C-alpha cells in the first residue's frame, strides 16, 4: 500500500479505531500524538485537518497515531530552534563584548518566534519579531553604542561568596527541572478545551483581537496608561535641561 492510499489519519476526526494506519504504526495513548500535526496547514485547509478536530477526536479511546511527515517537521524545527535559542542565551551570558550579547539575544528572540508559529500563535510571533527583535533590540544597540562597547567589565566579586551562591542557585534550579522532567509532570496533556469552537484557538489577528477587545479590555486600557507613563518617564529622564540650569 503506497502512502497515498493510506486511510485518512485519525487526526481528521474519523472514528479512532476505524482502520489501521500505515507509515510506521505506533500505538500511542490518547493525546500523545502531538497536537501540531496540523503544522502550517491553513485552518480548515484542503484536507480539513484542523487542530480542533484532532483534539475532539482524540478524546476517544486509544488512538493509532502515525509518524506523519508533519510531526517529523515539527521535531526538526523544534530541535533546530531550541539549539539556536540555547546558543543565543549562552552567548548573552558569556560574551565579553556587549554587542555579541545583543546578537545572541536577537538569535534567541527569533528562534522563539519560530516556535510561536509552530504553536499556531501567528500574531504573537509577528509582534515578537517586530517589537522585540526590531524595536527593542535596536534600542539596546543604540544604548550600547552610546555607553561604549570597548570597556572591559570588572569581574571582581563585591559580594562575599557570590560565585558559590550562584552555583548553588543553579544546581537547585536544574535539580527541580530535572526532577519535573524525569517524573513526567511536564507531559500533561489536558483534555478540556475552553473554547466553544476549537477553530477560535488559532492565534490569528482576528481571533486575538476579538478576545482582546472583549474579555481583556480592562487590561488593555491599563496598558495604555502604562505606556503613557513610561513614555513620559523616559522623556523626563532623558531631558538634560534642568541639569544645565542647576550647574
Amino acid at each position, binding site marked *: 500500500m503506497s502512502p497515498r492510499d493510506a486511510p485518512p489519519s485519525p487526526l481528521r476526526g474519523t472514528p479512532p479505531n476505524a482502520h489501521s494506519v500505515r507509515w510506521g504504526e505506533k500505538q500511542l495513548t490518547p493525546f500523545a500524538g502531538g497536537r501540531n500535526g496540523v503544522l502550517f496547514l491553513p485552518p480548515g485547509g484542503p484536507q480539513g485537518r484542523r487542530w480542533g478536530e484532532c483534539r475532539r477526536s482524540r478524546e476517544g479511546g486509544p488512538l493509532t497515531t502515525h509518524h506523519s511527515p508533519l510531526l517529523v517537521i515539527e521535531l526538526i524545527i523544534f530541535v533546530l530552534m531550541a539549539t539556536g535559542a540555547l546558543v543565543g542565551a549562552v552567548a548573552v551570558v558569556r560574551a565579553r563584548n556587549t554587542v555579541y550579547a545583543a546578537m545572541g539575544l536577537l538569535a534567541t528572540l527569533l528562534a522563539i518566534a519560530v516556535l510561536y508559529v509552530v504553536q499556531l500563535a501567528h500574531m504573537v510571533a509577528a509582534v515578537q519579531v517586530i517589537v522585540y527583535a526590531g524595536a527593542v533590540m535596536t534600542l*539596546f544597540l543604540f544604548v550600547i553604542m552610546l555607553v561604549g562597547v570597548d570597556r572591559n567589565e*570588572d569581574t571582581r566579586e563585591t559580594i562575599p561568596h557570590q560565585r558559590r551562591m550562584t552555583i548553588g542557585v543553579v544546581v537547585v534550579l536544574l535539580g527541580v527541572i530535572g526532577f519535573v522532567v524525569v517524573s513526567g509532570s511536564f507531559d500533561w496533556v489536558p483534555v478540556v478545551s475552553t473554547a466553544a469552537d476549537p477553530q477560535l484557538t488559532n492565534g490569528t489577528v482576528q481571533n486575538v483581537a476579538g478576545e482582546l477587545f472583549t474579555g481583556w479590555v480592562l487590561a488593555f486600557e491599563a496598558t495604555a496608561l502604562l505606556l503613557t507613563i513610561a513614555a513620559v518617564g*523616559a522623556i523626563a529622564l532623558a531631558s538634560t535641561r534642568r541639569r544645565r540650569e542647576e550647574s
Partner: protein
Amino acid sequence: MSLVVTPGWYMTLAAILFVIGAVGMLTRRNALVMFMCIELMLNAVNLTFIAAGSALGSLDGQLAVFFVLVVAAAEVVVGLAIIVAIFRRRQSASVDELADMKG
C-alpha cells in the same frame, strides 16, 4: 520514549532558558547585559504561556504573552533611559559603582 514534540518539550526548553537568564543576572556586572538577561527570562516565561495555552486550547496564553511584551517594551524604554542617565553622570554602566547608598 516517543519523539513526538509535546508541550513538555517547550516547557523544558523555557525552563532551561530561564535558568540561563538567571545565571547571567547573578554573575554579570554590566547593567546592559543584566537587562538582556531579564529579557531572556521574560521570553522563557512567554514560551511557557504559549505552550500551555496551545495545549489547553485557549487563547488566553497568547493574550498574556501580548501583555508581557507590552510591559517588557515599556520597561526597556524606562530602564535604558535610566542607564543612559547614570552613564552621563558616572561614565560607567557597571552596577558595582552604584553602591554609594550601601550601609
